[in-house]
């Protein structure tokens, strides 16, 4: 007697699970221009690579004779698959079943997914929709009591979610209206995205918020792209779910599968010694005129390899992943178009997050330094720039991997001083346009020569005279003579310098464990 009937039952139940929440709910979901969870998984992964785990999970109803008379699948779909040939784990919420809430969920499956990626050492992508497994008040009637949130009545999920941040690359995609624990599962990640005009993210949605006496707001007004494109809660806003999946695959391609691996080198057809003529004129001689830093970045990295992160937040610093002769790095560069490239509170937070990420996953850092210091003035003080800036300094100081700084313009003040770690494997170069010091000359003159200027017969002429004296002393050549800057370089040869650095230090990258757990 064979087990064919039971095997047939397995197949029947798996096929039933493919129907998700039913045709009507799927149609309603599509009408909002959203893909179903299985469509999302299919679009994210390489064709045919999805190996589902927990395909039979769900809720069944049995009659008095023990016959199964009704069923609904779990609203969590998860399993292994490949993204551009590399194994990852994906977990997705099915909004067509009880809005993705715990009513149709299974906390054991959710928690085990997180344990699997930790122990199998593979990247995790969370496709979050609805409450992302969060509780529903209907649960209380089912279980006949209330419970302490995330307490002992169920196996805890959040501790494993937190731990994975220091173990494997995690991408959180907000693909619907996401609140509560769903929102947490998006932002406890290394990279997050939401879809313009489709996704929303909030601690709590309008039904709860509109009960508090606050001005009633729509989902879009409370947690749409207009809010989180600037809040820092989400790294990037995309125009479609397909774009989110493409960017997910690309993000993961720069990182190792876990902290026990090194970031993979890519095969690149781009001359590491390519000379870029545009760079000789990239920084204006007029010190008040800004340069376009993204053009400089594109000129020096492996062609097309710059993948910017969190573009609309902390805009005075440009941060992204890039490659030099195939070696992946975290690249940072000051953008003078925003606040003269000063480190604002937001920019400092962005630096802290991504330098910590690079430290965790053994990515070298390349820093195109242009920083006049921290943001000054009432706006900067109110935003607690000094504390956020201090955290950025700590993150840089704690960085253990190779670090290459190219000072292309300003390196002044506290932010300028923090341009690289002191103890790490680091090299530093400067362009002829570089200027540095504890204070920008302009502000420093007013403080140091206040009396001399105020008592001069012609204060403006005196100011100009002092400025001219100090301008001569600012020459980077004088600093190079005493080895306070290791090397001045022709800007056109910057790519070659960095590629040699990347190759020279590739063997020095180590998979040593992270000393401090990563925080989002």
């Amino acid at each position, binding site marked *: 007697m064979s087990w064919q009937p039971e095997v047939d039952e397995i197949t029947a139940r798996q096929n039933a699970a493919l129907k998700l929440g039913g045709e009507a709910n799927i149609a309603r979901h599509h009408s909002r221009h959203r893909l179903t969870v299985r469509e999302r998984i299919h679009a994210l992964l390489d064709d045919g690579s999805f190996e589902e785990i927990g395909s039979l999970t769900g809720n069944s109803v049995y009659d008095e004779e023990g016959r199964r008379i009704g069923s609904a699948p779990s609203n969590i779909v998860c399993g292994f698959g490949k993204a551009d040939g590399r194994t990852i784990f994906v977990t997705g919420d099915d909004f067509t079943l009880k809005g993705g809430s715990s009513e149709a969920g299974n906390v054991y499956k959710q928690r085990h997914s997180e344990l699997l990626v930790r122990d199998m050492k593979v990247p995790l992508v969370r496709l979050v929709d609805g409450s992302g497994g969060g509780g529903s008040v209907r649960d209380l009637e089912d279980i006949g009591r209330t419970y302490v949130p995330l307490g002992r009545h169920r196996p805890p999920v959040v501790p494993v979610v937190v731990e994975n941040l220091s173990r494997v690359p995690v991408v959180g995609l907000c693909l619907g209206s996401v609140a509560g624990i769903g929102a947490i599962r998006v932002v406890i990640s290394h990279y997050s995205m939401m879809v313009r005009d489709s996704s929303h993210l909030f601690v709590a949605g309008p039904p709860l918020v509109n009960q508090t006496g606050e001005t009633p707001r729509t989902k879009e007004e409370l947690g749409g792209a207009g809010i989180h494109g*600037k809040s820092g809660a989400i790294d990037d806003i995309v125009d479609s779910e397909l774009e989110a999946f493409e960017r997910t695959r690309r993000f993961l391609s720069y990182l190792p599968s876990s902290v026990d691996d090194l970031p993979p080198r890519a095969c690149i057809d781009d001359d590491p010694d390519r000379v870029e003529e545009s760079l000789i004129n990239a920084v204006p001689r007029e010190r*008040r*005129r*800004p340069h376009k830093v993204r053009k400089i970045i594109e000129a020096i990295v492996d062609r097309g390899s710059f993948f910017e992160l969190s573009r609309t937040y902390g*805009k*005075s610093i440009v941060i992204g992943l890039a490659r030099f002769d195939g070696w992946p790095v975290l690249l940072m560069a000051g953008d*003078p*178009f*925003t*606040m*003269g*490239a*000063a480190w604002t509170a937001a920019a400092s937070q962005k630096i802290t997050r991504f330098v910590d990420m690079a430290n965790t996953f053994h990515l070298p850092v390349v820093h195109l330094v242009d920083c*006049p210091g921290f*943001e*000054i003035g009432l*706006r900067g003080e109110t935003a607690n720039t000094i504390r956020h800036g201090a955290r950025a300094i700590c993150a840089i100081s704690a960085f253990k991997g190779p670090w290459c700084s190219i000072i292309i313009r300003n390196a002044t003040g506290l932010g300028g001083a923090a341009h690289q770690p002191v103890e790490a494997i680091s090299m530093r170069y400067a362009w002829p346009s570089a200027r540095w010091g504890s204070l*920008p000359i*302009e*502000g420093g003159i007013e403080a140091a020569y206040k009396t001399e200027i105020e008592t001069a017969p012609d204060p403006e002429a005196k100011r100009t005279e002092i400025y001219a004296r100090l301008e001569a002393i600012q020459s980077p050549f004088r600093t190079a003579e005493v080895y306070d800057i290791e090397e001045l370089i022709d800007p056109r040869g910057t790519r070659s310098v960095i590629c040699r650095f990347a190759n020279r230090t590739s063997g020095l990258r180590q998979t040593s464990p992270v000393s401090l757990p990563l925080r989002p």
Partner: protein
Amino acid sequence: MARANILSPTAGSVWKIEMKLGDRVEEDDPIMILESMKMEIPVMSDAPGTLIEILVSVSDSVNEDQVVAMIETDRDAN
């Protein structure tokens, strides 16, 4: 044709207004210059079109992403 907002790229103050209403603008043309952290930051058009509104004056303080001007573009809005 559509109306497009021109946003300030940074917090700062308006130092110079380089164009007047009705002027033709091309992509990346500076409409005004802001001063921020001792830098002269151009506010540039994102698209070709005609300048139809200037919403700030010299010496005004502006915030990052504040709408400071509007153009009528040559092409449909995104």
